[in-house]
């Protein structure tokens, strides 16, 4: 699948949130969407997922969403919302099963293919061991893995994930990023909103840096995570290092803060 966003603009409550965004997304690529709070990352992800009215055009394989239809697009694009609210205390497996709703026929029950997809998704996120527990009995990290499994269970061509690492401990953050990279390697496209620049630089094939509703940089992590970009967008300087033949960055100083910027 090829998603092309052209000249996207969004205003929420009269305030411009996104302006002049041009973005192309392909399958097989793990794209990290980074930027400071309020830069418009979530808004852009929702526009790409066809969840928000906007100016400009988003084309899915050169077709607008209207021509494809709600249900068909839902089978091709999976969306993992920020925050992970679950309003009823369903069992973990029942939550994951919600990912199969776009595949369900009216009045149809779950098929063996649905069951397999659910099982695969839960194994992939290491969530199978608590499939029978209710969501309120899980830790924040376990909960997030169930919700990630829900999105994977759609088995869509494109996975859009808004801060899937929130609330995960370091090991599960690493495992989640490894998993997303594996999803991309298997041929799907993944766009993930991240706050951790180190993980973004290490795992993503490509980074898109948003600042004040515009794309400040778009390209390979090395090019996007330059000092000038980071100081302009985040107001920080970073420490750089090298491990296992890979460069990494570590947020080090806030440029506003006299204490740390010494």
């Amino acid at each position, binding site marked *: 699948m090829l998603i092309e966003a052209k000249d996207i603009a969004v205003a929420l409550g009269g305030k411009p949130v996104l302006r002049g965004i041009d973005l192309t997304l392909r399958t097989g690529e793990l794209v990290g969407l980074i930027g400071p709070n309020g830069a418009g990352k979530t808004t852009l992800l929702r526009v790409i997922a066809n*969840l928000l009215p906007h100016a400009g055009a988003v084309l899915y394989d050169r077709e607008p969403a209207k021509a494809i239809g709600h*249900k068909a697009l839902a089978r091709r694009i999976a969306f993992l919302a920020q925050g992970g609210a679950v309003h009823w205390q369903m069992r973990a497996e*029942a*939550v994951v099963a919600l990912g199969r709703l776009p595949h369900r026929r009216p009045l149809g029950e*779950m098929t063996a293919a649905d069951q397999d997809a659910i099982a695969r998704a839960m194994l992939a996120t290491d969530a199978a061991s608590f499939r029978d527990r209710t969501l309120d009995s899980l830790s924040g990290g376990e909960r997030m893995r169930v919700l990630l499994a*829900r999105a994977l269970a759609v088995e869509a061509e494109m996975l859009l994930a808004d801060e899937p690492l929130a609330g995960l401990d370091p090991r599960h953050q690493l495992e989640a990023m490894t998993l997303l990279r594996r999803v991309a390697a298997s041929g799907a496209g993944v766009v993930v909103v991240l706050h951790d620049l180190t993980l973004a630089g290490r795992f993503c094939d490509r980074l898109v840096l948003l600042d004040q509703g515009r794309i400040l940089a778009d390209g390979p992590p090395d090019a996007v995570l330059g000092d000038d970009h980071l100081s302009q967008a985040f107001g920080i300087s970073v420490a750089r290092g090298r491990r296992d033949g890979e460069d990494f960055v570590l947020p080090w100083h806030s440029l506003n803060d006299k204490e740390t910027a010494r």
Partner: protein
Amino acid sequence: MSAALDTPAALAPIAYWRLVLLLALATLAMAAVSLAIGYARLDLWAALADWLAGRQTLPALVLAELRLPRAVLGALVGFSLGMAGAAMQGLLRNPLAEPGILGISSAAAFGAVVVFYSGFAGAFALALPLGGIAGAMLAVLLLYGFIGRGAGTMTLILAGVAINSFAGAMTSLALNLAPNPYAALEIVFWLMGSLADRSLVHVWLVLPLMLLGWALLLSCAPALDGLTLGEDTARSLGFDLTWLRARLIGGAALSVGSAVAVTGAIGFVGLVVPHLLRPLIGHRPGRLLLVSGFGGAILTLAADTALRLLPIRPELKLGVVTALIGAPFLFSLIHRLRQEA
């Protein structure tokens, strides 16, 4: 892989349909009990035989004119209230959403009272349920306008208080302006909610409207499951939320509006029943609809049968009894939600 993760019982459709069947049978059984119990002794089989043969005997008349409408309406009204409660809870993602608490029932009652007054009720039979439906529709639209998306418990209850008091004030105004005190008294008693002294005409009047309402609500089952994860996720799963809201609002107004129009306001059924049954279907809002419908029918029939067995005369009104059971239940539910928050 699927051997390692075999289907557990709670996900299996068979267990769900077994529960539905069980509740349906229990509803039939409860309706039979309701038929058998009354102020006069009745040989049910003889009455049934007379009625079916078209013989105008006293037992046949008691069955057809008194017992049968009461049992059938009890089941229909209870089913409507139970299912509408489950549907509103699913839409608003809040276990306290219920037609009575949200003011839908009292708005429907106001709609029906307006029809009483204007004299339309005499002009054509459907006017009364249509008045109730219009009132219910107005309340749900108002409610949705009030709280928009993802309402917190507090907003929800406050919106209900506002709608309830407005509908109550308008109804009181109508009573205040009543042409004679007897008309006012008649309306006050009707407002309390009762299944007594209804006829099969009432059943035929509301049945099609209720069936349409139920069908609309049931068609929302998968989308209500999807809404568990919030509106964005539901839309990303391919559900058109505008269309979903229209169906839910229309379905709730049709079923609750016509129920209130023939029996008056019967509260709390839609609160108590979904809450009790939710654990049995794994908290899935879509599956709660049908199950709550039957549960509502059982509870309403049971309450209506119980009040005929109570040695209290004049007979207690059904709406009074359900409120006496439901209000403490609401207290305990709020208490528990506060502790969880």
